[in-house]
């Protein structure tokens, strides 16, 4: 192993295989040793250390790859003599950044989960799924072909299903898992269509070759048409996986899973796969600016839509789920406005502070003996000081209080929105920023301030949980430094780094731009502070009263979207299914088969009379046959 490529392929292979190996091991241990204390210890230490190894492998690659590299493990699918799909990793700034987020946050959340899931009968099973998820996510991130990305894409969907319905003995959880799985399938159809269309145009599914072919230009109108179809498919896939309108409905229900799962899969990593994919395929989208426009609009609309629902939720995890949808909307807004670096920056900071918030919420839930309703919380900041302070940092970060990370990344997106001069989007973005700080303030105040309204005495969580919270709080506070704007004396390192693979309009460096950006930052931080202040005064003395006016009922009921979908889609599908079951399967297919069976039964009832058991009668038949043969031979003479 003396040449760098071999070392890279070894390191990256280890990074991807450690979680997979872990998944197999924990499954075996969980099956073999069940609930024994030792097994739990082994699994938790093992899972965390495997993840840490994976993280350091990715980190090593990150530090050692100049620009981008490709490592090929083996040939996977050969189409013809010219093109094949390899089992290969594409190591470029985009994938390595996401890979670091996945394994880094993943390690922390594994550590947290080992405390959170302590004593659960499905301990081994839980870590099996979690490690399998990380493996799939790494496949999605690093694969250099769309086929590999699709493998990971489906893998994370599957693990998400497993983990949402992890406590499957309650029907509600199982249904939530099914819902997530089925809604994701609709998005996956889009991905498949995109793959087919791209294969038709370019005859290859390797991402670098595809993008090179697109950038080489000189495409015929026919090819452009198919690329447009592919873009539509990718947008559909992204909305499914990243929970955007119209396919966002599964994410709030996905909160049925254990809280570490919500933090890792449904906030920090998996749901950002759509953002990653659209950034990765940016050259295709640049050929179809109108689709980018649609994407920006979807993002903006989802952001404000989910934020307006989040205000009225009482389940602490549901608030965070809608908040996640809303923040993902921000990311898509940025992607649609050709600011993928801003989107990616927000992805990273969001991964930090949303993981922190979810884990903080998990700590609260753990401390209150599985109480999730914020109306039954309150005043627990004294009982859980570490959780309180870390969550406070998370809340301030997402609300956009300078200089925390959420402020910097959100401000960048607001900056791009402002300069796009699309008034709808500007309105969406700023309103969402206000709503975000308001509902986060509501969550914060209702949980930690006022009088205690719960039933159980609160207690602080174990060290394995609070330590993770502290690390994440530090990350949430300082992650903004990654891409601190140049105008304010920063270095924009993320921008420099990602510029190699995605294109984004460069900022101006005039004095005028400086003042306008300061103005914007001032407005956005004022908006954030205003939201928090309003929430403080509204909920400081919360005693159970809520918004009474009938107009709010529509928000409380989440715009009745679930009911509309149920009426328009689910019921009709059920009816079609019923018709197919009764009509086609029951009548046509079963009718045909049963008819054949009954005809042969009736015929055999007649024919069995020939079989009398009388030897002489058989002899007679032989005779008659013989005579017939004789007659036949004679007549043919």
């Amino acid at each position, binding site marked *: 192993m003396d040449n760098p490529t071999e070392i890279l392929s070894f390191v990256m292979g280890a990074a991807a295989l450690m979680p997979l190996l872990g998944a197999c091991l924990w499954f075996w241990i969980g099956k073999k040793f069940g609930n024994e204390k030792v097994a739990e210890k082994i699994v938790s230490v093992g899972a965390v250390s495997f993840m840490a190894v994976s993280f350091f492998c990715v980190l090593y690659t990150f530090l050692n790859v100049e620009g981008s590299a490709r490592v090929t493990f083996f040939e996977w699918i050969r189409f013809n003599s010219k093109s094949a799909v390899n089992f290969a990793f594409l190591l470029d700034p985009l994938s390595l950044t996401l890979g670091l987020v996945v394994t880094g946050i993943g390690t922390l959340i594994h550590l947290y989960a080992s405390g959170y899931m302590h004593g659960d009968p499905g301990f081994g099973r839980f870590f099996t799924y979690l490690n399998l998820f990380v493996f799939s996510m790494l496949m999605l991130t690093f694969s250099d072909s769309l086929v590999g990305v699709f493998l990971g894409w489906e893998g994370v969907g599957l693990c998400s299903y497993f983990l949402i319905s992890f406590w499957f003995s309650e029907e509600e959880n199982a249904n939530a898992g099914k819902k997530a799985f089925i809604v994701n399938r609709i998005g996956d159809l889009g991905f498949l269509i995109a793959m087919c269309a791209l294969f038709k145009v370019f005859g290859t599914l390797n991402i670098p070759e595809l993008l090179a072919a697109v950038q080489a230009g000189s495409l015929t109108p026919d090819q452009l048409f198919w690329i447009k179809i592919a873009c539509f498919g990718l947008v559909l896939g992204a909305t499914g996986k990243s929970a955007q309108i119209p396919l966002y409905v599964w994410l709030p229900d996905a909160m049925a899973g254990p809280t570490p799962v919500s933090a890792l899969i449904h906030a920090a990593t998996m749901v950002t796969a759509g953002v990653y994919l659209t950034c990765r395929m940016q050259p295709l989208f640049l050929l179809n600016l109108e689709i980018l426009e649609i994407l920006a609009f979807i993002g903006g609309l989802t952001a404000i839509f989910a934020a307006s629902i989040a205000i009225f939720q009482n389940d602490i995890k549901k608030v965070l789920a809608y908040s996640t949808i809303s923040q993902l909307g921000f990311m898509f807004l940025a992607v649609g406005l050709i600011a993928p670096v801003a989107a990616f920056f927000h992805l990273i900071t969001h991964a930090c502070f949303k993981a922190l918030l979810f884990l903080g919420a998990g700590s609260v839930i753990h401390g209150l003996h599985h109480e999730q309703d914020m109306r039954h919380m309150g005043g627990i900041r004294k009982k859980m000081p570490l959780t309180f302070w870390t969550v406070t940092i998370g809340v301030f970060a997402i609300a956009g209080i300078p200089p925390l990370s959420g402020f910097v990344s959100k401000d960048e997106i607001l900056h791009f929105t402002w300069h796009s001069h699309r008034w709808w989007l500007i309105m969406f973005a700023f309103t969402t920023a206000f709503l975000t700080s308001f509902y986060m303030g509501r969550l914060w105040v209702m949980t930690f301030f006022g009088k205690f309204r719960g039933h159980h005495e609160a207690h602080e969580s174990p060290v394995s949980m609070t330590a993770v919270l502290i690390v994440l709080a530090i990350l949430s506070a300082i992650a903004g430094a990654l891409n601190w704007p140049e105008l304010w004396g920063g270095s924009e390192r993320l921008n420099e780094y990602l510029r190699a693979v995605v294109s984004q309009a460069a900022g101006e460096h005039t004095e005028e731009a400086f003042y306008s950006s300061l103005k914007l930052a001032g407005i956005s931080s004022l908006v954030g502070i205003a939201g928090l202040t309003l929430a403080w005064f509204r909920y400081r003395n919360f005693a159970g009263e809520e918004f009474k006016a009938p107009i709010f009922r529509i928000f409380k009921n989440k715009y009745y979207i679930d009911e509309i979908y149920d009426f328009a889609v689910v019921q009709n599908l059920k009816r079609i299914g019923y018709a197919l079951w009764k009509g086609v399967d029951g009548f046509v297919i079963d009718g045909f088969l049963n008819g054949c069976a009954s005809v042969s039964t009736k015929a055999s009832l007649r024919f*069995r*009379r*020939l*079989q*009398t*058991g*009388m*030897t*002489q009668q058989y*002899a*007679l038949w032989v*005779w008659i046959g013989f005579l017939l043969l004789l007659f036949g031979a004679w007549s043919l003479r």
Partner: protein
Amino acid sequence: MMSVPISYLLFLSFGVFCFGACGFLIRKNALSLLICLELMLSGVNIAFVSFSRLHQNEAGNILYFLVITVAACESAVGLALILNFFRIKKNIRLEEANALEG
């Protein structure tokens, strides 16, 4: 030596065979059926020997020996069957051996 026309011999063979066959179809006693089978085989044997005479070779005669051997075996097996049948049913009426009725 007086030569008998082949057609006479064949008519004789056919006649013996038909007697046997008819007997086989109409008799009820298993032992008679066995005898009728022998009769049919004898009819066939007559045809073999006649053709052997007609063609002036020994193929027919050899076949006659083979057939008579098989017939001996077959009647031995048949008698054994009838004997066992008698032990079970206390008679040898063949219409009672109808366990194979469908």
